[in-house]
């Protein structure tokens, strides 16, 4: 069921900002506290905010179960492919094949205290993004399924 009009409009306004903040945490995972899981959890909480403020049916029209499943599988696939590329390049599984390479995310970091460069850390930002996508999908799906389990039986 919908909550009151005030809560709904708060959720509407807050949702993009929570999303941006979650993405910020994901993208800055290698510089500041945070990373894929934390940022993904924050962004997923944004979805959960919508689910609680509106009736779950309304949200299910816009983000269907299938699209969330694809999101989750896409994240995991991205993650495991990033690891597989390292094998294809002749090194081991999970080798950080972009670090200190100079191109994308390839700048090396000086030792000691420094504020950090966003364009560093090799595959780690890619994996952060992948895990972030996965966690958003997974958490959203869990809550959506559990909410759907309240309503009726699981027979058609």
């Amino acid at each position, binding site marked *: 069921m919908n909550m009151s009009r005030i809560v709904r409009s708060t959720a509407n306004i807050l949702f993009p900002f929570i999303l941006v903040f979650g993405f910020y945490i994901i993208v800055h995972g290698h510089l500041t506290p945070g990373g894929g899981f934390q940022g993904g959890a924050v962004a997923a909480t944004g979805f959960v905010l919508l689910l609680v403020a509106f009736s779950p049916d309304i949200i299910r029209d816009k983000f269907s179960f299938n699209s969330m499943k694809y999101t989750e599988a896409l994240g995991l696939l991205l993650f495991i492919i990033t690891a597989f590329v390292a094998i294809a390049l002749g090194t081991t599984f999970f080798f950080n094949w972009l670090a200190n390479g100079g191109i994308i995310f390839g700048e090396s970091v000086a030792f000691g*205290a420094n504020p950090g460069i966003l364009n560093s850390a090799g595959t780690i930002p890619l994996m952060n993004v992948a895990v972030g996508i996965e966690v958003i999908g997974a958490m959203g799906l869990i809550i959506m399924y*559990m909410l759907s389990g309240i309503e009726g039986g699981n027979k058609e």
Partner: protein
Amino acid sequence: MIYNLPFIAAGLIIIIGIVMMVTKKNLIRIVMGLALVEAGVNLFLVATGYIENGIAPIFTNSPGGEMVFPTVQAMTLTNIVIGIATTALLLSFVMIIYKKYGTVDVDKTGRLKG
């Protein structure tokens, strides 16, 4: 001894969780107890890697001192996510059990026996 506070707290939280799992009758309480045990283990793990007057293992502009151990924090991070996955799965089991049996009392849900 006073410096061991986090360890003691972790141990006590684990014990409270275990007692809750053993003595409570509601299945949701049992899952809550499990979540408490897990929180205690997390606290124990993080406390293991703490160094006195250490700083967080993140390099920034501010001049650092000795840094706290990072591995154990990574482990705790992993365990937190595993914990929410477990809790979600267990609670959905409990919901299905309620839907089929009509009760979540642990004494009445034990239908497989012998």
